[in-house]
């Protein structure tokens, strides 16, 4: 400590230090125990073959070797990417359309916006239940609608081919509101002078959109794409309620596979290795997102 300080100043420095550490202590403790410590524990566990109740055999990098050679793991990664590839473009297109329409000075904007946003805040279990009913191959609303327009019915969640598209449909419906809000915010920040200038130059609405608006909002588009892709890898609840990963693994995404290996098969060591694999994937996606858009992301 600086000896030139007066006793009063010195007292203040000491008090500042005490207060600083005291005030940050509760948060730091919780974060240490439930986030930092687990990050190390998961690495430790990944080196063992363990069911956490007795068996605890050291296997070195055996779990990782199994992981890298596992058709089930890579299958789950591919299915997750399939889910992302099916849901993200649709989510971006539809949410952008909604945001553009709502930004066109419509009346009752708050009301419309609330409608588009409400699926996002409603719980996954409750809404999955009603979609189970909607997807029902026998008397569900979706097949009734297909029949009404003269299309053949689908078995939706009960068929290995249509289960993932159905999962994509549900998830896109549930999460679309988030992207709508992001795009509405982005659109409202596009300077109106730019749009007016383009119009004066004789550009059509369509051209103005592609050459002015779309490039201006591209950071938000990247943000939405990466956030939705990351959440695909973390997805668990709707899989558990709608399909439990089936039929025949057709909807077992990586998040669900992790849970299955841990709490279904009691293979906590191997599942820890899956966790680390998941971390690497999400970390790379986050780095990509930061590099491209410079936004900070908060995980739930």
């Amino acid at each position, binding site marked *: 400590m600086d000896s030139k300080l007066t006793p009063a100043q010195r007292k203040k420095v000491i008090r500042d230090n005490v207060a600083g550490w005291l005030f940050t202590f509760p948060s730091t403790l919780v974060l240490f125990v439930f*986030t930092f410590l*687990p990050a190390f524990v998961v690495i430790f566990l990944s080196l063992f073959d363990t069911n956490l109740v007795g068996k605890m055999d050291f296997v070195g990098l055996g779990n990782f070797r199994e992981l890298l050679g596992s058709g089930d793991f890579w299958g789950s990664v591919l299915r997750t990417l399939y889910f992302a590839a099916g849901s993200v473009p649709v989510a971006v297109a539809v949410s952008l359309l909604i945001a553009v329409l709502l930004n066109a000075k419509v009346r009752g904007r708050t009301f419309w916006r609330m409608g588009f946003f409400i699926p996002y805040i409603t719980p996954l279990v409750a809404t999955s*239940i009603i979609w189970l009913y909607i997807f029902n191959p026998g008397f569900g609303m979706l097949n009734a609608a297909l029949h009404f327009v003269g299309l053949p019915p689908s078995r939706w969640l009960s068929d290995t081919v249509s289960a993932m598209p159905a999962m994509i449909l549900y998830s896109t419906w549930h999460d679309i509101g988030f992207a709508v809000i992001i795009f509405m*915010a982005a659109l*409202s920040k596009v300077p109106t002078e730019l749009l007016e200038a383009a119009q004066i130059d004789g550009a059509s609405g369509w051209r103005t959109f592609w050459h002015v608006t779309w490039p201006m909002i591209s950071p938000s588009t990247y943000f939405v794409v990466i956030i939705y892709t990351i959440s695909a890898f973390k997805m668990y609840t709707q899989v558990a309620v709608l399909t439990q990963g089936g039929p025949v693994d057709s909807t077992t995404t990586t998040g669900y596979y992790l849970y299955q290996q841990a709490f279904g098969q009691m293979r906590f060591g191997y599942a820890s290795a899956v966790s680390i694999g998941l971390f690497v994937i999400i970390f790379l996606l986050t780095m990509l997102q930061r590099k491209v858009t410079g936004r900070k992301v908060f995980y739930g």
Partner: protein
Amino acid sequence: MTTMRQSVFWNKVNRVLLYLVIAILFIVVVFPFYWMIVTSLQPQDVVMNVPPELWPRHATFQNYIDAWKFAPWLRYFGNTLFVAVASTLISLATSSLAAFAFACIDFKGKEALFNLVLSVMMIPAATTLIPNFLIIRTLGWYDTFYALIIPFAASVFGIFLLRQYFMSMPKELWEAAQIDGASRLRYFRSIALPLAKPAIVTIAINSFLGSWTSFLWPTVVTQSQNKQLIEVALNTFLGDNSQQWAQLAAASVFTTIPIVILFFFVQRQFIEGIGGGGIKG
């Protein structure tokens, strides 16, 4: 003149088209909620009709009564409310204190500690699921409310957001308070906190919604019926009544309604919190 009248005409057509497209999209998105309510009011034998009946001609509340009687829902609501309120209040307290220290107090190691806290963002919950399950068991908290509350008793998002707020407050305010002899805690409580109200509301809504809709974590760390949270209980109800669509819809309605009502009250803050305040409603 004709061209102008024409363009007025086309403008009107455009407006009509605009509202038409919005309305169609709106109906598609909101329809599952309508369907949830209609189904919950239908007699059980009607819900398996082909084609489905779009309007409940013989509306009945019997499904609500049957579904409600099937399980101790009041208990589940109580558990969920308790866990949601407790984790919200505790995380608000810990994050605002930490944010205040990071923003307003000079202490040794502040920068390093703050960076460490921020780095927590890089670790997703999916990665810490298994070790946290082990830690909860080691602490002896398996199947207790501690397991549902304490891991959420701090929020990096909250610390980050509140710190921004506290840092944007004029320094003179803090200096004046110190000259007046106010302690740090007093300044924090009576000046800094009230000024950060919008951030506090945003954090509270996020935390409350998070607890109310949580599913995976309570599935992993609780077991007994009297610790069950609403979403887990609803999934169990689904398992026990997998073909009772009318009752399932009724249970979905009454477990979702509290969150929808809450949302109506806070929707502006919540949406602005996501959109970064760029949109006005």
